[in-house]
């Protein structure tokens, strides 16, 4: 670093009072101070809590309704008995939204875990070995990336038939090249750094350098991408459900399908589109806010 540059950095360093501890601890401390991160984390926590505690929180059954109050021209809106009103089948809307969080969370977590694991494995192989291994893996990823994500997911889901499992598989497959490329690029960057050269000059074995130094230092962007990809997975799941590629059982509440079901009744019961829409928005927003805050906390260059 040049002298004038280090001047500003030093200023900032004194500014933040650089407390002790590893970089992760430091990042965490910074996250706690960042209101964006706190809001994001709160939204996510709410979302996860709702999904897990659904049977306790939901006032009614999400699958059984009473059709007696429902007519084509009138769907009862929010009332003191049903806070968010009833849906077209006379089921309690609030309970359906609460249970809907389960499907979103399940799809998000499972598809991301699958996709990110496979993607990172491929990325680590490509970034770690280089050469022809890298070439083959990356050309494969390029081909996968060349097909638009949602279209690809639709194709996979259509191929496997509508079910939650096929939705998860589809989204996982879409995520594979994203994580593979990201981790590989990050590893290639780290491989050029001085501390890797230092480890080589110390005679540390190649495999140990890759696993012990390069890989752990390459994870920061992947973690950020993970949070953001969760948000995208929730949207994709809703999108696939909207297109009728969700769970085979239509009575299982899913936010995306709840939107589809109401599309013809938008004029008579707009609230039925509004509530699942808001649920999607808030959960996605939570992950996006936390992702952005994480990116800031983990990237020393963005730190202010």
């Amino acid at each position, binding site marked *: 670093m040049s002298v004038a*540059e280090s*001047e500003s950095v*030093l200023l900032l360093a004194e*500014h*933040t*009072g650089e407390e002790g501890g590893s970089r992760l601890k430091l990042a965490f401390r910074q996250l706690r101070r960042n209101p964006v991160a706190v809001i994001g984390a709160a939204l996510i926590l709410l979302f996860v809590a709702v999904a897990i505690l659904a049977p306790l929180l939901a006032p009614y059954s999400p699958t059984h309704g009473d059709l007696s109050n429902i007519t084509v021209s009138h769907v009862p809106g929010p009332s003191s008995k049903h806070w968010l009103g009833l849906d077209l089948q006379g089921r309690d809307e609030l309970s359906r939204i609460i249970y809907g969080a389960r499907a979103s969370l399940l799809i998000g977590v499972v598809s991301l875990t699958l996709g990110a694991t496979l993607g990172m494995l491929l990325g680590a192989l490509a970034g770690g070995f280089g050469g022809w291994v890298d070439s083959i893996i990356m050309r494969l990823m390029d081909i996968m990336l060349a097909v638009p994500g949602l279209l690809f997911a639709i194709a996979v889901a259509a191929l496997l038939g509508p079910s939650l499992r096929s939705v998860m598989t589809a989204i996982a497959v879409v995520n594979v090249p994203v994580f593979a490329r990201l981790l590989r690029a990050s590893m290639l960057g780290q491989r050029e750094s001085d501390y890797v050269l230092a480890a080589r000059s110390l005679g540390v074995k190649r495999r140990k350098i890759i696993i012990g130094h390069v890989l752990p230092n390459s994870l920061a962007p992947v973690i950020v991408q993970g949070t953001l990809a969760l948000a995208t997975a929730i949207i994709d799941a809703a999108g696939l459900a909207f297109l009728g590629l969700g769970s085979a059982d239509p009575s299982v509440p899913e936010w995306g399908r709840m939107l589809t079901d109401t599309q013809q009744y938008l004029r008579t019961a707009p609230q039925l589109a509004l509530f699942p829409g808001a649920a999607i928005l808030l959960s996605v927003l939570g992950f996006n806010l936390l992702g952005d805050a994480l990116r800031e906390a983990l990237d020393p260059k963005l730190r202010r």
Partner: protein
Amino acid sequence: MALLSVEDLTVTFSRRGRRPVHAVDGVTFSVEAGATVGLVGESGCGKSVTSLAIMGLLPRRGADVGGAVRFDGDDLLQLSPNAMRELRGREIAMVFQDPQTSLNPVLTVGRQITEVLERHRDMRGRDADREAASLLDRVGIPDPNRRLKDYPHQMSGGMRQRALIAMALACKPRLLIADEPTTALDVTIQAQILELLKELVVDSGTALVMITHDLGVVAGLCDTVHVMYSGRIVESSDRRSLFAEPRHPYTTGLLASVPRLDSPRGVPLRPIPGSPRDLLPWAQGCAFAPRCTRRVDQCTAVAPDLLPDPVTGHALRCYNPWPPGGEAVAVPAPIVAEPIVAKPAVRRARKKP
């Protein structure tokens, strides 16, 4: 009256939930037209922040600027952002350390110069092109007409710094602030750029504020030198007297810690202990006291003021300075290099502007 006079300048960075940082803490100095003033110090001493404050380039939020910066009588700190923008580039220009990041990578160098000419001198089209070429020629870039069409990445580091200086000179500013202009450059290129700056001051009477950590650069260039530490000036003097009779322990420490090309080998360097981060807040005494070898009790009680030194006339902020010619500066006699160049045969060649 001085062209620029900085009076009791303070810059405080404050952030929610953190202790405010006094980056510049009561700095006063002035620059006459055609003079060169050096601000010297290490990282964190506030020299760069001082220059940004003069230019009005500090962020409005988070940086609290106090005191006065009088340029030609007007207090720049009181000017509106628009008036300041007008002044910047036209009357005061700045050259930064890194010529790579100071140029816009997607515009040709010529375009970037003519932009300044259009904005401040109302020149257009071929006139502007011709002027831009003559500016490049003036800063010693060969084949200027062709170079105008170059993008920054097509130029070497030294060439880019020249182009930046050409841009800074486009409006014939009366004051040029150079912040470590040669730090990123090789030493032979540094020599070229310093020579260019010297010529500018002599030929066009531009006042120059040179900000650097390199005492060698100051020794050959500046009329007056201010040594800064932790946001305050600790010693000021004219160049010859400062190097001949440095008084402040920080000044002497700096001089004793850099190896000189002309000093004999085998003499160990005398570093300043600690690091620039080991500071004492000025409110509790002298900021340099934790690293100072001549510290007395008073130093950690009350901060010394910047006062005229009765012995040398320097402005000095120290209770217990080195005696003039004290042992800290007793650098062994230089060994004499054989003359390589016959001295009188050559005269300084200078390009006419």
